């Protein structure tokens, strides 16, 4: 087995297999490789594309004339369980493709995966979608069901499917996550359920698997605020050491028992404990001195105070070429909360960013403007939407941009900004009494409020949400007898979910005593998002 690189691997077999994601650039480079090595006709190549051989990919193989000895296969896998209540399709390229470039070829695969899910657990009686892409996935799900008509089980274990687009709530991406798993993801990059503890994530480096079913220690700390994690870990270390030491005073029978059963478990726990502690160390080293200041600034942005100092900080940091991704996140947070910057400030900051980090980021800033993350106030949105369009329905959904409710108003209407005037809120935030603890008490993830509303009452009052999101919200059939009954809920994110939001949904499920499972196209974090948008070539 070889890892894909720019040079062809030293093959020896006659049947050769490539396993690649459905990214055009990757497929193209392979096609060129194969064209050069066309000489030996006895070799058969098979290329498996996950999840689907897109027509553009097929066309590139066809145009380079290699289909004579190459067979293309699609492999559309189902949701992969990353943890006990987190399922992922691991399509990190979906966000850039669907939301940035508006090419939605992967949505069919999401619909397919949901259909397989239904084949196992029963058809969803009630589906609520929030966002345009979610609606498309729902429509495609319906199309697939009517075409293929697979056998569904009689009883549905999951009685509600809630789908959300990533771009409904950008604040969760832009704020620094403060749960243990969120912190690890932002600093050490979670890759398919693992974090790598060497600074470069090199091949032989130590890795830590973040899975609460196999790692008891992780299960205890994963959703906790980072300020309490280290204490917990040191307490645990002492406890484990004590349990090991007990054997000195026991009888032979007990010692034998201990060695055969408990010792192994304690040793493995100690190993994982050591890994967790070194992970904490790495994070603390990286964030020393900066984190507190950034958190303070984020709090100012959310509470709409000290904005002038905020802008001065941005100007100052760009002059010193402070960490690009952190600076971008702060700029975007300001823009999202204030519904865009005034023209003069926007142009000024735009220029400063280009002069400080390189002119090539002109495209980065353009993409951020397209996503609505960093834009000028009252500027006309992309003129495509203003053109007359044949499909009035599609235009209606997109015209939401012109009737768009500013994000701060949405926060106020939906009660996402906790009203904290007293100082003891800070401690409650950290201790995990209120769902906003995942962001240090300054913001409750929108998905938390949405799911709570959907589940709490028999006839949920989603009027606030309807006023905020208009056409983008489509509520499922409320009159179904299973609504509000005790059943499991699947919350599906299109575009990515942050681990802090997963933690807040965990909190909700504990509060309400309901089983909530989170499915997503991939996990995502603020730094990863900025890095992908700012990269030289965005390959989708």
């Amino acid at each position: 087995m070889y890892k894909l690189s720019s040079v062809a691997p030293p093959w020896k077999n006659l049947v050769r297999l490539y396993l690649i994601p459905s990214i055009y650039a990757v497929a193209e480079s392979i096609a060129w490789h194969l064209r050069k090595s066309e000489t030996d006709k006895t070799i058969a190549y098979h290329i498996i594309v996950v999840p689907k051989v897109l027509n553009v990919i097929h066309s590139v193989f066809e145009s380079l004339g290699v289909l004579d000895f190459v067979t293309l296969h699609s492999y559309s896998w189902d949701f992969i369980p990353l943890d006990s209540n987190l399922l992922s399709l691991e399509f990190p390229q979906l966000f850039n493709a669907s939301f940035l470039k508006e090419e939605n070829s992967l949505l069919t695969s999401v619909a397919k995966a949901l259909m397989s899910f239904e084949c196992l657990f029963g058809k969803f009686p009630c589906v609520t979608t929030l966002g345009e892409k979610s609606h498309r996935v729902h429509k495609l799900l319906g199309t697939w069901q009517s075409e293929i008509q697979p056998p569904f089980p009689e009883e549905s274990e999951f009685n509600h499917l809630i789908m959300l687009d990533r771009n409904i709530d950008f604040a969760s991406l832009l704020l620094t996550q403060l749960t243990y798993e969120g912190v690890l993801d932002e600093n050490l990059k979670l890759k398919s359920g693992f974090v790598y503890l060497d600074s470069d994530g090199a091949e032989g480096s130590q890795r830590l698997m973040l899975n609460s079913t196999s790692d008891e220690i992780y299960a205890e700390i994963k959703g906790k605020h980072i300020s309490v994690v280290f204490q917990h870990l040191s307490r645990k270390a002492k406890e484990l050491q004590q349990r090991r030491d007990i054997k000195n005073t026991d009888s032979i029978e007990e010692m034998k028992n201990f060695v055969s059963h408990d010792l192994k478990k304690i040793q493995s726990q100690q190993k994982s404990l050591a890994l967790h502690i070194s992970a904490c160390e790495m994070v603390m080293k990286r964030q020393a001195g900066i984190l507190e200041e950034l958190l303070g600034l984020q709090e100012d942005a959310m509470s709409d105070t000290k904005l002038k100092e905020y802008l001065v900080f941005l100007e100052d940091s760009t002059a010193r070429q402070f960490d690009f991704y952190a600076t971008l996140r702060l700029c975007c947070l300001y823009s999202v909360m204030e519904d865009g910057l005034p023209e003069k400030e926007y142009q000024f900051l735009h220029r400063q960013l280009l002069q400080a980090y390189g002119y090539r980021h002109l495209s980065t800033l353009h993409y951020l403007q397209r996503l609505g993350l960093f834009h000028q106030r009252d500027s006309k949105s992309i003129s495509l939407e203003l053109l007359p369009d044949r499909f009035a329905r599609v235009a209606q959904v997109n015209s939401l941009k012109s009737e768009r409710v500013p994000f701060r108003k949405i926060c106020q209407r939906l009660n996402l900004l906790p009203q904290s005037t007293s100082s003891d809120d800070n401690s409650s935030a950290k201790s995990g009494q209120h769902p906003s603890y995942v962001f240090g008490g300054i913001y409750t993830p929108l998905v938390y409020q949405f799911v709570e509303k959907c589940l709490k009452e028999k006839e949920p009052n989603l009027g606030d949400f309807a006023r905020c999101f208009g056409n983008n919200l489509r509520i499922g059939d409320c009159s179904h007898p299973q609504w509000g009954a005790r059943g499991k809920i699947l919350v599906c994110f299109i575009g990515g979910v942050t681990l802090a939001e997963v933690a807040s949904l965990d909190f909700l499920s504990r509060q309400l005593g309901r089983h909530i499972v989170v499915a997503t196209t991939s996990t995502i974090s603020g730094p990863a998002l900025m890095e992908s948008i700012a990269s030289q070539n965005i390959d989708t």
Partner: protein
Amino acid sequence: EHSDDIFGATPLQTAQLSKQVKQNIPQQSSLTSVPHTKLSQSLSSLSTSSNSSFKFTARQPSKQCEVTCKLLSSIVNDETLSSPKDVVRSIFLGMSFDLSCFKKLSDKTVLLDEALRLGDSDVICAVLLFLQKSLHQLVLFPLLKERHVAAREYIAILEKQKDFKEAAMLCADLQNSKEAAVHLYNSCFRGGDQNLQQSLEHISKNELKNLKQIEVESETVKEHIQLLERQYPIAVNRSLPHQSEKQKDKTSPCVGKPVSADNLVGSSLLSTLQYCCRYNWDAPENLLASPVGLKKTFRLTERQYIWNAFIGRLLMNEDPIKILLVKGMFGAPKISANLSITRILEIASKLNGNPNLFDQLIPLTETSDKRYHLAKRYQRHRIVIDVLISNKDRISLLQYRDSIDDQTEIDYINNTLRVSSTRWKN
């Protein structure tokens, strides 16, 4: 009489016959517009109607003739036999499909609309790829103008195929000139670093002129070209042997990584400024590498200039104090551009600045409280002691004296305490 024998007719007879024949020839226009089958009929009618001695028999067209006629000219059948709905469905289900039967523009339009109605982007892409091959740009673009979902998908396809010029044209057609400019700008980076400057100049002179309302983008491109024009000579003409480059530069988390001469070309404007402040500090303004020249040409702000000059000088172990101070009111020095002293000191400590710097800057802080904390953090004992003395806080002085090691400072404290004239608070 002699001519009659040779020709067999008199001139008068010939003229009469000529007149008769001319009368019998039908109109010119009707002859040419009739298909050839009818032509053969009229020729035969010619022969039967005239009563001259010219007799020619026209036969009915034979079977062979009919087949040859069909082979020589047949109508091309552009009617499509499959329904767009069925074809779109087969593409959706992954079955094999053939779009080549959709030849007419109206059929293609119906096909595209059917794909858009289904809502699966991969199907739309399949149809668009077919239209890309079979329609000219001038026909395709108006079609896409009315269907912006399809337009977006098509732009994404063009980006993948690295056809940025066409993507830019489509965006310009859709009145999205900013995006068009960005596509053109991105296309310059695909040619590699050596050609970057050339490509930028090319698009600046040509394509960007045709787009409207892109002042920001065109100015960015111009500045980029100017920067590259400066960077090449600066990197080539480095005068000092730069031994210090081999040492690892100290960094602070608040500050970006400094750049060396090897990766100067292609770095950002402020990195270049910092480089020039390090190695070309004294260059006169007219030279390309002069920091002041750089500031003037690119119209940098005071803040941008002072930060980078400060960091540059610090990294070269030079005293940056002159850069930071300006004459405030009443001639007293103050920090220029209102930079935060806390920040300056933070960076200075990480980059191993001279302690003298701290002694000069800390007294400029407004509140004595802040002065106290800063001095304590950076171990500037004299300043701490002076603050405590001005607060008349004897107990803290004693505590501080016991906590430090420096003998001169301990003596200083003891001397101050011995002077009985001070009225201590505690």
